[in-house]
C-alpha cells in the first residue's frame, strides 16, 4: 500500500520552527513517505544562495537563543542547511512559492539548487491533494 504523503508549508524563517518542520519531514522520509515542502515568505528567504546559516529567531524563540546556540555548537542539533541537504538526499521535493518570490523580489537564479520548481498555491494544493498537510 502506498503510504500517505506529507506536505509542509514552511512559512516561518525562525530556526526553531524550521528545525521542527524539517524534523517532521525527515522522520516521514525515513518511514518511506513522499514529502513535499512549499516554502513561503521568511522560510523562502532561507533558500537564497546567500542566506548562510545565521541563527534567525522570532520573538518567542529569541528568549531561548542560548539553549539553541549551545546545542548547535555541541552538534546535538543541525544547521538548517544540513537539514535541507539530508531531506534532499532522501528525496524531498522543494517548491518555492511564486507569490513570495514576487513579494520579496527573489528570482529563481537566487535560490539554492535544492529547489525543484516554483509554483503557486493552487498547483501545490493540487499536488498535495492526497497528502497530510501542515503549516509551520
Amino acid at each position, binding site marked *: 500500500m502506498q503510504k500517505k504523503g506529507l506536505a509542509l508549508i514552511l512559512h516561518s524563517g525562525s530556526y526553531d520552527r524550521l528545525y521542527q518542520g524539517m524534523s517532521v519531514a*525527515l*522522520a516521514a522520509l*525515513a*518511514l*518511506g513517505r513522499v514529502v513535499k515542502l512549499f516554502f513561503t515568505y521568511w522560510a523562502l528567504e532561507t533558500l537564497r544562495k546567500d542566506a548562510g546559516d545565521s541563527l534567525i529567531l522570532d520573538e518567542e524563540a529569541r528568549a531561548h537563543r542560548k539553549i539553541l546556540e549551545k546545542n548547535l555548537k555541541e552538534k546535538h542539533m543541525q544547521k538548517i542547511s544540513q537539514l535541507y541537504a539530508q531531506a534532499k538526499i532522501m528525496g524531498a521535493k522543494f517548491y518555492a512559492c511564486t507569490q513570495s518570490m514576487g513579494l520579496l523580489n527573489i528570482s529563481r537564479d537566487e535560490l539554492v539548487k535544492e529547489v525543484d520548481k516554483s509554483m503557486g498555491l493552487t498547483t501545490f494544493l493540487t499536488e498535495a491533494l492526497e497528502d497530510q498537510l501542515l503549516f509551520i
Partner: protein
Amino acid sequence: MKEVEINGKAVTVVSTVDAVGLFCPLPVVKLKIEMEKLKLNEVAELLADDGGVLEDLPTYCRETNQKLLSLSKNKDDIFVAYVEKQRE
C-alpha cells in the same frame, strides 16, 4: 566491517552509524540514509543516546520492513542496535 555476537550468533556488521549526541529524529534519519547504501541482508549498527530510539527504531523497522536484530544499552549508556536490510 566487524563481527559481533547477537543472540549467540556471529553477525557481520557492514557499517556503523554514530548518532551519539544527535536529537530525535536524526538517529533514525542517519540510519535510513545508511541503509540505502547496504545490500540485502547486510547489517548496520546504530549508536545513539537519544531515548527516542527505544520507540522510534522498532517503529522505523516495522514500517519499512527492515529487521531489528537487537537494541540494547551498553555500559556507557549508549543505545546499540543492529538492523538487517530486508527491503530496498
